[in-house]
């Protein structure tokens, strides 16, 4: 009985891990240009990661006592989490607003978010002086007055939410029907919980800088920072779903044989419409924020010009371009605008945490090459993990053995 119902381990490994190929064929199938580039990056990045862990932050970063945070916080965590808001946005649209036609966007968005969060925390480990104490705020000692405390808890909870949302795809892969059904029924509740938590910590990432009113440039500092970060995370989520679905549909063409491209384009325009509205709201909020804190005078300074580049070139312009894309049914324009928006979000996070931070201090921060290498290495690991999972699990298509509706 046992033998008949369960295939031997070697064939399981062959099916599930090696994509149905023999080990040799599987290795050969992996000799592609993109994999060569990934390997090259990791061959450099992994020893640098080890170097950071062995020799400490001093020799491996440009961090100083005056500039305690660098790109590992500014890019890996702040940008990573903002750009991982796709799962929140798609989950809400699909499960709570009942926009069932976006079905095919949900799983890729949730997987992107899950990996975004996991690798953001992974990158954070390199930044923490005592990374091995990561669970301390959960179990050892509570700093209840800290915004960082709120973020730590929300990250942990939200990663759990994303795991639940992603798990049906996993259980389909390992063919555990009962588990799949159970976690599928949890998905809508996980989404509700996720909306609350994600809203809390996306805004909290902006609120981190509320304690530094004397260090952050007045054009970027505002009591509305939490709201700026939350709204721009929703923008980032929408833009990332467009951007990432465009890329995956090219990279995984093989899996998309029965795909309705006309519908995909139409839904992309729908997301563009939402992004346009969200960007414009964000822009107006920024204008009101400037009016509220009355910081107009700073606009006519070098920092002011840089600020205008950010909010005119990367907020107002994409809002307008998204609107044009919808008006003229131009999907290509919408996709490029999504890319522009993603750049804009990265610019905003880097401005807030690095460029406009300590703007009046004599000592400026710029990253050391090792910091850049580790950042690129972590992003590469995320991409490789995404590829590995998409090649094995039903992320981009509906698993033929299961009911697609959920």
């Amino acid at each position: 009985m046992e033998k008949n119902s369960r295939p031997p381990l070697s064939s399981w490994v062959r099916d599930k891990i090696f994509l149905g190929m023999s080990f040799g064929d599987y290795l050969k199938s992996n000799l592609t240009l993109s994999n060569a580039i990934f390997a090259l990056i990791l061959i450099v990045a992994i020893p640098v990661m080890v170097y950071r862990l062995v020799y400490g932050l001093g020799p491996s970063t440009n961090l100083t006592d005056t500039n305690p945070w660098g790109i590992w916080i500014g890019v890996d965590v702040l940008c990573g989490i903002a750009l991982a808001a796709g799962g929140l946005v798609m989950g809400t649209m699909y499960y709570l607003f009942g926009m069932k036609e976006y079905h095919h966007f949900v799983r890729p968005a949730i997987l992107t978010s899950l990996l975004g969060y996991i690798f953001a925390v992974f990158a954070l480990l390199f930044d923490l002086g005592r990374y091995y104490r990561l669970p301390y705020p959960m179990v050892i000692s509570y700093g209840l007055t800290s915004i960082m405390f709120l973020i730590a808890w929300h990250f942990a909870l939200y990663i759990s939410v994303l795991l639940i949302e992603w798990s049906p795809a996993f259980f389909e892969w390992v063919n555990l029907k009962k588990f799949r059904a159970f976690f599928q029924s949890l998905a809508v509740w996980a989404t509700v919980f996720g909306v609350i938590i994600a809203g809390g910590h996306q805004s909290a990432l902006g609120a981190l800088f509320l304690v530094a009113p004397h260090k952050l440039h007045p054009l970027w500092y505002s009591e509305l920072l939490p709201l700026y970060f939350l709204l721009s995370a929703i923008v980032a989520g929408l833009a990332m779903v467009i951007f990432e679905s465009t890329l995956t549909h090219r990279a995984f063409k093989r899996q998309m044989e029965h795909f309705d491209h006309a519908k995909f384009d139409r839904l992309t325009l729908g997301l563009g419409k939402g992004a346009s509205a969200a960007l414009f709201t964000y822009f107006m909020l920024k204008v009101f924020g400037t009016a509220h804190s009355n910081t107009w005078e700073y606009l006519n300074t070098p920092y002011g010009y840089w600020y205008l580049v950010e909010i005119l070139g990367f907020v107002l312009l994409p809002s307008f371009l998204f609107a044009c894309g919808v008006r003229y049914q131009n999907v290509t324009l919408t996709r490029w605008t999504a890319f522009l928006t993603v750049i804009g979000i990265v610019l905003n996070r880097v401005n807030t945490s690095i460029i406009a931070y300590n703007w009046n201090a004599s000592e400026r921060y710029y990253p050391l090459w090792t910091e850049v290498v580790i950042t690129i290495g972590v992003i590469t690991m995320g991409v490789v993990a995404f590829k590995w999972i998409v090649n094995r699990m039903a992320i981009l298509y509906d698993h033929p053995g299961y009911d697609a509706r959920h």
Partner: protein
Amino acid sequence: MDRREFLKKAAAITGVCLAGSRTNVSAAESLRLNPDRYGVLIDTTRCIGCRRCEWACNEWNKNPNGPLKSFEDKSVFEQVRRTHAATFTVVNRFQDKKGARPVYVKKQCMHCEDPGCLSACFVGAFKKTSSGAVVYDPSVCVGCRYCMVACPFDIPAYEYNDPITPKVTKCTLCFDRINTEGRVPACVEICPTETLRFGRRSDLIQLAHERISNNPNKYVDHIYGEHEVGGTSWLYLSSVPFDKIGLRTDIGTKPIPSTSKGFLFSVKTFEIIAAWPLVFAALYAVAKSRKKDRKETPAAPKKKGGEDGKKQ
């Protein structure tokens, strides 16, 4: 009382209630600090820049140190220095114009009444002791360095070169000395010109005001630290404007923790309030999809169909 007056009064009462907690109550009162907490008064007009305080600080805190003689080296004054991992205090020299009398200013942790570092720490590693000292407990520190971001005086430093057990470092107000009757912080003890004066903070403020009123031409009429960011344990007197001697005068009187308190409160409130409409939305979504399931598969429940048939 006519309607207009009533509205005016109601608005005024609301305003006081909303603003009162922030403006009318000092940090010390709302935090219930020990009224006898200590502080140090620095009279910068007396400092001669001998840097003995730096030496004594290193000595007491077991930081790498040189012979006392080496601290007479005046070349360090060419740059404005800040605190670092093994340097809890530094003396800087400020000279407004060439030929003007230089002013020496000691820099160290200000030991805020309502400290930003304490509120920022997500494991609660900082504590404001009853003696007034803000002390740090490395046994729970994760090394996120948010305290360094939150400090308006840029004081906490980090042991970046320790790969395994790096710590945040800063002046401790010699909490391990001052609790013994009669002992004062190491820097205060060694100061040869009585620039530094240790005592109850309230006494020091009184003393500082006396010095200002007795020598109105000598001092700027302000005690730096009396109200800055809600008040600090270390207090400064100066004969030149404070922003000319490296002390930021743009930091206001609002304690740093108050910048994030409102957010934390509203997030918690929002998360509870927002939960309800979301839960109902989810219930609605679940119910809707069940209804749809039933519509799409009418033949599936065989038993039910049979019962229905009997009834009809």
